[in-house]
Every structure is written in structure tokens, then in C-alpha cells.
């Protein structure tokens, strides 16, 4: 492959990659003792989203086992998770890093609707 063609193809690829990333919806969730805000988010089946998770106090967890998501959220940085829901319904998520009295109540729901 000639170098010029390769560069053109690479540029085209980058364009598509950027375009697909630009289409991703960003959902921000803030964690603090002992709640997520928002605690309920609505996503569309098949629509890729980026969850941007932050913690206002201590290291928290974000576990949505129905979508194989399980991350820790250290305070002071954004933890990003890519997710494309593959099923409709209401699915729970919880904090799975013990954070004190109230930890057991710390959770929320992901509602996935038809696209």
C-alpha cells in the first residue's frame, strides 16, 4: 500500500472513530456517603453510553452486575465506564466498597428502554 493511501485510510478511520465516540451519550453520576446522584438513570437498549463516575468523599464502588460493570471510584478523579445495554428492564446497581453505616442502602437503578 502506498504511503499516501495508508495515511488517507488512517485519517478516515480516525474520523469514524471520533464520530462514533462523539455519538456516545455521557451520563454523570456522583457518589457520596451514602447515595448516588442521580440514583436512577434511563438508557436505551443498544445505545452506547459513557458513565462518568465521581466520588465526593471516600472511595466508592459501582457494581451493575447485569452489565458486568464493577469499578472502584476513588475521590478526586473521574472514572469512566463504557456501557451498551443489551436488554430492556430495570436493573440495580450498588456500592460494593464498604463505606460506613448506610453502605447497605447505597444503590440505584438503571432503566433500559427500547431504542
Amino acid at each position: 500500500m502506498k504511503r499516501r493511501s495508508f495515511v488517507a485510510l488512517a485519517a478516515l478511520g480516525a474520523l469514524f472513530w471520533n464520530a462514533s465516540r462523539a455519538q456516545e451519550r455521557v451520563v454523570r453520576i456522583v457518589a457520596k456517603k451514602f447515595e448516588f446522584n442521580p440514583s436512577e438513570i434511563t438508557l436505551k437498549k443498544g445505545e452506547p453510553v459513557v458513565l462518568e463516575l465521581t466520588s465526593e468523599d471516600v472511595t466508592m464502588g459501582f457494581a451493575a452486575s447485569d452489565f458486568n460493570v464493577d469499578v472502584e471510584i476513588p475521590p478526586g478523579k473521574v472514572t469512566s465506564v463504557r456501557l451498551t445495554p443489551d436488554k430492556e428492564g430495570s436493573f440495580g446497581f450498588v456500592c460494593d466498597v464498604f463505606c460506613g453505616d448506610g453502605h447497605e442502602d447505597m444503590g440505584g437503578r438503571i432503566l433500559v428502554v427500547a431504542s
Partner: protein
Amino acid sequence: MGQAFDRRDFLKLAGLGGAVFASGLAGCAGMAASEQDEFYFVQLSDSHWGFKGPALNPDAAGTLPKAVSAVNALKERPDFIVFTGDLTHTTEDPKERRRRLAEFKEIVSKLEVKTVRFLPGEHDASLDRGEAWKEFFGPSNYSFDHKGVHFVALDNVSDPAARIGEAQLGWLKADLARLDPAAPIVVLAHRPLFDLMPQWDWTTRDGKAAIDILMPYRNVTVFYGHIHQENHHMTAHIAHHSAKSLIFPLPAPGSQPKRVPIPWDAAHPYQGLGFRGIEAETRKPAYGLVEFPVKA
């Protein structure tokens, strides 16, 4: 009844306590076993000393002492007792945490059994990585042998993210290495080692790694707490049995949208609370479980 403890005695005892659950006991009824082949121990769990919530348990300060009295009143004295974690209810105040641990230790010192083993739960240990708990009870993972059964206590709570961790997994592997694959092994832990209900945080993040280490051993049984109810589960040939709590029961896994505790029922006080007797038959090996209630 003397110190000899045969199946008939156990069933008699079970009759006083409640339902018997047989773990790997197929064909065992009527089997003769010698004194050396069997022994009996008690599992208590999740006393959450320091918890206050009258709607869930108006006798929060009385339930643990009642359980201690009930164990002391057992017709047959167990060889030893294990507490599988959440001895105390969590607090962010390190002084209060130590005060609760000290009070708990004082109450259970009234148990009339020489050997009592303890494990931490996340309420005891997760906020300070087990520092205070270890001051009172020593190492949070250990092993011991009793009448031919190898017991291993795993700490899956001092890491607030519910990891056993590479170091402890390495220790587990080395601890088991000297055993015959047919050796009877009992694992004690607070959280379930398998994914019982990850949506409710009823799991251990690297529990599968521990199960993988245990899997080559043919006679492994796990006793744990955390979920405040009985649950019996198999991962291949490994049996997992959770214990009731001594503070409030929790709903069955996935039976409702949220993991909210079951309120106190004034018509049936202490319902869902209790402790467990375990009869080990080392020759088979097999375990007979009997659940004892807490009574007013």
C-alpha cells in the same frame, strides 16, 4: 447424656432446636460412628453489637446475651464455637469501634466453652482494614486442625472492596498444599465466596480464586455469614452454608427489589434469628446442621 455424641443424640438435640439440614449425608442414617469420628461445633454470626433500630430489633442489646445463654444451655457441650463476622455494627468513630468490640468480647466471654474462634465482618473491619479487630482477636486469617478436619478461616472483609487479596490467596494455597486431596476441609468466612447475589453485594470480589484453589480438594465445606439467613449452595462439589443473624433477618436473595432488612414481628419475636450446631463426621466426611432459634 455423656460426652459420646452419636447421630441419635444429635437428632434428639436437633428436635429441640429445629430443622436439620444434612450436607453430603446420603446413606448416613443409621451409620455407626465412633467418638473419634465425630464432633460437634457451633456457628454464631452477625450479632452487630452496637446496632440501634427498634423497628428491626427492639432487643438489640439483649439478643446476643440470649444466644450466649442458649448455647450454654445446650444439652451437649460443643467442642468449640466459631463467630463468622460482623460481631459489631459499624461506626466511623475508632474509640466507639473499640468500645463495641470490648463489650462484645466481654459478653461472649460468658460462653462456657473453652475454645471460641472469631472472624471479622465488614462492619468490624472494613473502615480501618481490620486494625481494631486484630487488637482484640489477633490474626484475621488462620487455620487449625480438629479431630482430623482442617479448618481455614479466610478474611474477605478487611479490604473494603471485599477482596481476599493475592497475599492471603497465596497463604491459602500454601496452607492446603500439605493436605491429601481427600482431606476433610472446612472453610470459614464472612462473605459468600461465590456470586450469591452481586446485585446486593453478596459476593467476594476474588472469591472465585479461592474456590479455584479449593476445587482440587474433594471434601470441602464452607460456613459463612453476612446474609442474615440460611442459604445452602453448591459450587461443583463444594458446599456453602450461610448462618442466621443475631440482630435482624434479611430477605431471600432477589426476592424483592431492595436488600432491606425484615422488620421485627411483635407476634413472633426473634423470628429469623438464631445460631447453628454442626455435627462433623470426619470419616465420611459429612456435616449435619441444626438451626437453633433465639427465644425470649
